[in-house]
């Protein structure tokens, strides 16, 4: 077991806790870079989708995991990003401009919806984002001249420095680069005063305010950043699916993103990756094992959403720290092997925080 002796305040602020981190994450990066040479196209495509989900998941983690706000319309920002990307590419913009433009437009939408609602309690935000998601998916359906409604919108194949971004491997590398960028931004946000302020707001809005934090402003900016990341993920999603349909950005997708956050582990960026792997690969695993399941279970309609619901409920009831929290406690068990104490990771009992007088 490695014991960290901190001798400098800057050690609290670094991204890497020690050189071991750097080594292991570097190794992971090498493996991920080499994977397209090792795995088949199908798996690379799926992993690309995992990366795209993870980008949107990082955005939602900043908002839900670190600021304590629930967004039930995250898929709407994904949709805005996806359609912006497709429309701008059709208009002949270069890909390196459409990506930030998609993120920016989603961020503007996020701030626009955030300003009026973020001053109220978090529950109102959950309801307002639910309504916002409904409105956006209706607009995508009905705004024929731009989105072509249910006929769908074909996404042109963009180029970066002459290389066409087509096929699973190209999307995989672009998504990987964007995921690393997103994680880097998020990790840096979390070690700045801005990130600390977000966590303070999550833990107690009243005490955050009394420390001089402009709660409404910080929440709005967090919402904008979160929406921008979703917009970026949407732009990549457009490349991934090649053909946009308005009904792919519905409440179910938003719930999938929330599942990423909760199952992965609220309040950890590593958790997003675990969550995205889980959420994206679970339906694939079901479809692979569909015929092996006993009886008729594998062929019941509506199996996937119900499993998401069930997993979400079980996670919140029995494993509130998610996969990453489970991994941490497992690691701790091995690290102090004979001396493990049962109560080390027990959930603290707390009283309901009232929002009333």
């Amino acid at each position: 077991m490695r014991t960290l002796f901190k001798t400098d305040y800057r050690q609290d602020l670094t991204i890497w806790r020690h050189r071991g981190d750097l080594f292991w994450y570097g190794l992971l990066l090498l493996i991920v870079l080499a994977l397209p040479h090792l795995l088949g196209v199908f798996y690379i495509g799926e992993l690309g989708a995992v990366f795209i989900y993870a980008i949107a998941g990082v955005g939602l983690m900043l908002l839900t995991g670190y600021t304590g706000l629930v967004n039930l319309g995250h898929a709407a920002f994904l949709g805005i990003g996806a359609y912006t990307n497709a429309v701008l590419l059709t208009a002949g913009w270069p890909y390196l401009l459409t990506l930030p433009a998609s993120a920016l437009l989603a961020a503007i939408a996020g701030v626009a919806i955030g300003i009026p609602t973020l001053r109220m309690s978090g529950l109102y935000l959950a309801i307002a984002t639910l309504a916002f998601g409904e409105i956006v998916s209706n607009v995508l359906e009905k705004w024929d001249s731009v989105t072509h409604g249910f006929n769908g919108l074909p996404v042109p194949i963009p180029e970066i420095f002459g290389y066409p971004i087509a096929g699973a491997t190209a999307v995989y590398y672009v998504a990987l680069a964007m995921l690393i960028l997103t994680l880097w931004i998020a990790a840096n946000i979390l070690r700045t005063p801005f990130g600390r302020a977000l966590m303070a707001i999550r833990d107690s809005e009243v005490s955050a305010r009394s420390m001089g934090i402009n709660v409404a402003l910080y929440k709005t900016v967090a919402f904008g950043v979160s929406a921008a990341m979703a917009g970026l993920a949407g732009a990549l999603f457009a490349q991934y699916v090649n053909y946009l349909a308005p009904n792919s950005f519905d409440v179910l997708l938003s719930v999938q993103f929330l599942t990423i956050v909760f199952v992965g582990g609220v309040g950890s960026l590593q958790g997003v990756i675990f969550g995205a792997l889980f959420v994206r690969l679970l339906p694939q695993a079901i479809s692979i094992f569909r015929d092996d399941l006993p009886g008729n279970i594998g062929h019941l309609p509506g199996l996937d959403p119900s499993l998401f619901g069930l997993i979400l409920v079980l996670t919140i009831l029995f494993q509130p720290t998610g996969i990453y929290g489970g991994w941490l406690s497992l690691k701790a068990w091995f690290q102090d092997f004979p001396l493990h104490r049962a109560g080390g990771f027990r959930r603290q009992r707390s009283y309901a925080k009232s929002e009333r007088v």
Partner: protein
Amino acid sequence: MTDVLRLLQLIVNGAASGCIYGLIALGFVLIYKATEVINFAQGDIMMLGGFAAYSLVAWFGMNYWIAALGAIVITAAFGYLLDVIVIRRVIGQPQFAVVMLTLGLGFIFRAVAGIAWGYDSVGYVTPFTNRTVRFGHFVLGYDSLSIIGGTVVLCAVLYLFFNRTRLGVAMQAASQNQLAAYYMGIPVRTIFSLIWAISAGVSAAAAVLLTPVAMVDVNMGFLGIKAFAAAVLGGFGSIPGALVGGIVIGIAEQLAGFYLPAGFQQVTSDVVLLATLILMPQGLFSQKIVKRV
């Protein structure tokens, strides 16, 4: 003249669907007032109530009235158990955990209903189906009238219950101040479970009232989103507000469907919801709540 008649017709139909939204919103508000939990599965509980009534009528051949009562009782018992078994465990956890829990429960209910009753819409004949009453040129459906009448009766019963019975007053006390109610010897936990039961029962009543107008199907629960708009418009936490909000939204929806281009009807409630949050976040029946530290 026909314009006036048509307008009147739209208003009555709107008020009828608005009563349904209001009843679902009433379910939210009861739970929210008492426990500060927002039940995102309320619409799906209503769906279960609808299927319960359908099963009693179609499978067991019960009389409509007995089946309606039976469905309400069964769903209320379900709500009670839901609180005892699941919801109670997460009290004290962050609010978003509770939101996610009820959302997940909604998905489970939908899937279970799909497995048990299938994904096709079902319906049954009620005493109000396809019957109309005529005043000159003005035609009213029994279905709309039954919804409005049923809502009025239900509200009267609830009003009497909350103001005239010991249990009802105890519920009000527990909603206003848990600790004080507990000190007065009120079993707060049981009371909260009973409030969940009432809320689920009201939703089941809404589903039964809705049956002559709309079929029962698995995705019926999405009406819950419109009920959110009703609750917010009425100022979350006000029971008359929830009903008035529901009726306003029902009428607005009908008018939008008639006077505005296609597509606006679907988003009317969402637009009203966002507009309420932006323009008058306290809702129509505002309760002045300022957080003190």
